[in-house]
């Protein structure tokens, strides 16, 4: 979608024409959902935030003043909404909070024991620990820097890079690069 097409969609929203939002939805749902899923790493929450994102975009339309790329604008809003959710959510004490920092859960099944050849990306991700998967998702899907991931999760950057390297090592053994 070009900048002009996007501006046209926004103008239609300003006139209460939902088709403008539908076009944006059809074009960018994949991108927005991926970014949000990458941060929250949980399907139900990602769907809720994606819904909130489009509702917010619709409400923002009358006051929207787009100077830069609309794609960047949408990405930043989506990512910030997801990060905001994570930050708020992290205040609720979860079982993960009791796992000592830097100690990763031991995999019951080692990577070597799995059948490498026909493994799908979903199966490959399942070989990662929850913490590793979250860092990989934020990095790959949301295109976040290690510093941003560190700040979002409230975990030292060294731990984040370590988790990422461990995840990449495991994925390499499974034939991914």
């Amino acid at each position, binding site marked *: 979608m070009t900048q002009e097409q996007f501006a046209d969609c926004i103008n239609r*929203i*300003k006139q*209460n024409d*939902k088709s403008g*939002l*539908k076009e944006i*939805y059809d074009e960018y*749902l*994949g991108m927005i*959902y*991926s970014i949000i*899923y990458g941060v929250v790493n949980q*399907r139900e929450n990602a*769907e809720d935030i*994606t*819904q909130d994102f*489009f*509702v*917010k975009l*619709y*409400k*923002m*339309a*009358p*006051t929207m*003043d787009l100077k830069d790329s609309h794609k960047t604008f949408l990405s*930043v*809003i989506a990512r*910030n*909404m997801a*990060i*905001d959710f994570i*930050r708020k959510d*992290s*205040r609720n004490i979860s079982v993960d909070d009791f796992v000592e920092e830097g100690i990763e859960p031991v995999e019951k099944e080692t990577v070597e024991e799995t059948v490498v050849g026909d493994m*799908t*990306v*979903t199966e*490959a*991700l399942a070989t990662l620990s929850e913490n590793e998967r979250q860092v*990989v*998702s934020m990095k*790959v*899907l949301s295109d976040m820097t290690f510093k941003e991931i560190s*700040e979002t999760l*409230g975990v030292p950057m060294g731990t984040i890079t370590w988790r990422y390297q461990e995840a990449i090592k495991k*994925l390499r053994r499974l*034939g*991914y*690069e």
Partner: protein
Amino acid sequence: MNKDFAKEYKDAVVNDLPDLWDRIEAALPEDVNAQDDATTPVAPIEFKKEEKPKKKKKKLVWLYAVIPAAAIILVVLIPVGALLTAGIFGLTTKQSSNSMAAAAPAAASDSDSIAYEASEAASFDEDPSFNINSVAEAPESIDSIFEDDNLKGAEAQGEKTKDLIPEPVLPGAADTEEEQELLDIGNGYLLANAKMKVKVDGTYTDDAIGTVAELQITSISGKNNEVYDGFSGFSVGECVKAKPEGFDNALKPGVEYEVSIYLYAPGDYWVIRPAD
């Protein structure tokens, strides 16, 4: 053959996209241009800071720490000085106590604590039963004298003394009074950032909280305070939902405001107020 993980992962997520349009459409407002007329300005809340005699307490803490320390130093220095004098010059026990008495007045002009030293030394001099052999017991005896003095003082001050006993410092409490004021302005409001600019995206009414504004942070000039564990502060571009308080008029979408942002701890939500 190596597979591209990033590409496959993105494809996998996109191929598994949920259809959210019906949900989104149901949540859209009828008229996107309509202002939220239900938004009424919240009456400004006056926060009266509780007057805490914190500074006074701090001074007392200082006093309670320094006076016994000075007493202990005196208790140790006087006998050690006496021992050294006796050892070096081969003086008799009586002579050594005399030399302390001579040294004490000279030192007395330096400070109150040293004056105390002088008076203690003088009392040794006057006491005919004073014996250098009892020096080892001196710390305990002088300490007990000092304790007695404290007790006498406490009795003289009566109930006042109880008020002056410093309260225990809770872990995680702000280190300085200034910091305390920054973080907690009373009634459960914790100052997260004193000055930032936000652009209002829109407002809506929450059943529990009331009016809630959807904001985007456009600039930050205040200091981020860690109002809860793990909170790393706000960043420019971040979207925040907060309850507006203390504004004369309803917040207008698209308008930029300079605000202070607080965490209202009892309700667990953000609150914005016009920046001072």
